[in-house]
């Protein structure tokens, strides 16, 4: 037979365990109380018996003793009193017991014996009794049945029934209720998750606004789902972007080749068209390469290769690399890195990011313009800023800049893939840095600035990271390796 679902829930099992433990505790407690009461009552009964026997034997005459015994035995609502006077030969003189119980020792301590009343109606198997020698010969037996003890056991039983069973029932009911509730939530979550798995990415786990762990978990999972949904949407968006940006050069290639096939008169005509086609294909390949590179950075686990990176070096090298390009284009290019800043990161990637920003700046700045690359500190942070007097990026588009294939409409005509900033963004994100786009600081100059802002490395950043060992102390060797412009060996 299949057990109901809730019985298999953890909550219900815990309820069972707790109820069981609770019951065991209560039973133990009752047993202890019972044992204590038992021993107390036994002492009490023994004392009582001894007292009665004393009082009877204190009488001088036999008749008074008999009278006394009768008085004692007369009032016995619980049918618990036993007593008897016996002659020296064992014949009954008075009292309500038939005969001297065998095994009851004279003038010894209290004993547990079995006694039968003379009317034969009542036989008690466990009676606390004592036997005393009567001074003129004969024996006195006084005993008391286990009425009190039986009564006490009954009370305890009643207490158990009336107290423990309802408690257990309430406990189990609570358990069932909680299990059902938990199970219902799990089922809700399950069905939602099934829907999400089936592709309904907009579904979210139910939350109650309570601060219970389940709710917190649901909120966390929902956050994760938000991120996944955003990622998937961006991937879908990228798909469209790729389609667009790949189609354009590919269409051109196709059309060019078709026309060449029909119209080319000479080998040179054909060759020219083929060259154009190759250029178009190279452009498409560059797009794919750039996309793969971004993916590689976004999914790369390169944190292991993080070292201390001297940003002034990176800037100087980028400057050296792009200065001729700027000069060829008649764009003024200035690099300012008076104070060195050290950050924790991947030197090659940071170089690539800065190089991309400068590449963009130089590309989009018209002849006679100006590009500035600078490094400065802002509190605990290092700021790499690339400013240019190019067409700039409209304020409302600045957030979009990091998106793949984003290119401001004004510069749409400039050659390039439009993936540079996405690449920079990926690198910046990997480092936990920020990328910001703004106008030239403190002026109405046309153009814009891109800023990479990152936490400066401190000695503690390095603690526990083996890779950083000695990275800071490399200045002298660094100076010599980079004298010929080679990348410093600090990077991984």
């Amino acid at each position, binding site marked *: 037979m299949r057990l109901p679902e809730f019985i298999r829930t953890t909550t219900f099992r815990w309820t069972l365990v707790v109820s069981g433990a609770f019951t065991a505790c209560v039973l133990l407690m009752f047993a202890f109380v019972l044992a204590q009461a038992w021993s107390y009552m036994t002492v009490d009964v023994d004392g009582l018996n001894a007292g009665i026997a004393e009082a009877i034997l204190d009488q001088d005459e036999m008749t008074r003793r008999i009278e006394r015994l009768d008085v004692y035995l007369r009032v016995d609502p619980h049918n618990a009193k036993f007593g008897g006077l016996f002659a020296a030969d064992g014949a009954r003189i008075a009292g309500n017991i038939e005969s001297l119980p065998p095994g009851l020792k004279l003038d010894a301590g209290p004993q547990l014996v079995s006694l039968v009343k003379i009317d034969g109606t009542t036989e008690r198997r466990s009676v606390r009794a004592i036997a005393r020698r009567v001074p003129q010969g004969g024996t006195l037996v006084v005993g008391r049945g286990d009425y009190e003890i039986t009564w006490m056991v009954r009370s305890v039983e009643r207490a158990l029934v009336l107290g423990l069973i309802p408690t257990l029932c309430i406990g189990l009911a609570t358990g069932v209720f909680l299990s059902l509730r938990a199970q219902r939530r799990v089922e809700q979550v399950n069905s939602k998750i099934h829907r999400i798995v089936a592709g309904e990415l907009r579904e979210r786990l139910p939350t109650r606004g309570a601060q219970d762990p389940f709710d917190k978990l649901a909120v966390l999972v929902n956050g994760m789902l938000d991120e996944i949904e955003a990622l998937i949407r961006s991937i879908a968006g990228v798909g469209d972007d790729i389609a667009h940006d790949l189609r354009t050069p590919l269409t051109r290639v196709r059309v060019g080749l078709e026309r060449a096939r029909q119209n080319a008169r000479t080998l040179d005509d054909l060759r020219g068209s083929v060259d154009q086609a190759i250029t178009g294909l190279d452009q498409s390949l560059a797009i794919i390469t750039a996309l793969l590179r971004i993916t590689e950075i976004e999914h790369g686990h390169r944190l292991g290769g993080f070292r201390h990176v001297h940003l002034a070096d990176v800037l100087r090298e980028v400057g050296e690399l792009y200065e001729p390009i700027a000069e060829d284009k008649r764009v003024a290019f200035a690099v300012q890195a008076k104070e060195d800043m050290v950050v924790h990161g991947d030197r090659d990637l940071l170089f690539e990011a800065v190089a991309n920003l400068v590449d963009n700046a130089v590309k989009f700045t018209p002849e006679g313009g100006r590009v500035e690359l600078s490094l400065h500190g802002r509190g605990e942070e290092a700021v790499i800023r690339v400013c240019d007097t190019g067409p700039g990026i409209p304020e409302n588009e600045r957030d979009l800049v990091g998106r793949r294939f984003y290119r401001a409409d004004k510069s749409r005509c400039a050659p390039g893939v439009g993936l540079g900033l996405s690449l920079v963004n990926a690198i910046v994100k990997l480092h936990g840095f920020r990328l910001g786009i703004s106008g030239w600081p403190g002026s109405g100059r046309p153009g814009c600035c891109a800023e990479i802002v990152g936490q400066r490395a401190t000695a503690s950043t390095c603690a526990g990271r083996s890779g950083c060992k000695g990275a800071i102390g490399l200045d002298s060797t660094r100076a010599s390796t980079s004298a010929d*412009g080679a990348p410093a060996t600090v990077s991984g």
Partner: protein
Amino acid sequence: MPTLSVEHVARYRSTLVDDADVSASAENAPMRVLLIEDDRETANEVIAELTDRGFEVDWAATGIEGLDKARGANADVMIVDRLLPGVDGLTIIEAVRQDRIRTPVLVLSALGAVDDRVRGLRAGGDDYLTKPFAIVELVARIEALLRRPTESRDTILQVGPLELDLLSRTAKRGDRDIELLPREFRLLEYMMRRKDQLLTRAMLFEEVWNYKFVPQSNLVDVHMGRLRRKVDLGDEQPMIHNVRGEGFILRAPA
């Protein structure tokens, strides 16, 4: 920009040939290339191209066959695809290197990731080329591997009238001193060690600048232009030649 046609370029684009020196590498026995590549079409293209240029090409279509042939060790250079059925390309290279076969290896891969490239070179590859590649790029790299400069102890490099002193870090053309920036010095040194070889932009960028990413601008061209203006003055015979769309060659003036 002067366009030069040397042997292999001439072979590749026969129309550019304007001198008769087309003897190619046929002076000696032809160089043997072992190509381990599972894609038949790619293999055919590469074989056709290399055969045209006077190489003798041996083709293995699977990893196991490739490993056998590589162990035969009579190739002068190997081209190994990274992803092969049977045995992985890198495994082949590692196995061959363990057998102490030092034949230079060019790794071909559709995986362009930088990390993958590093893995390829660490396994014992000498160079790495990402698919799809320009056939010129492949040939230039093969030639570079075949003519790898021996680590000479010379402290002075000489090509024609051009002289580079590696100790004092000075350059001269004839009697004329050439002032070079550090990077230009490295560029010229690299070219002089590989004179008469076609050096593609990607090769230069990787080897001289040490950068693994591909910049979008014509960085190498601009830097090369600067170097050329210093090396070849207006009235001198040009030594640095631009092979259109392919790369650069340093040659002693005829």
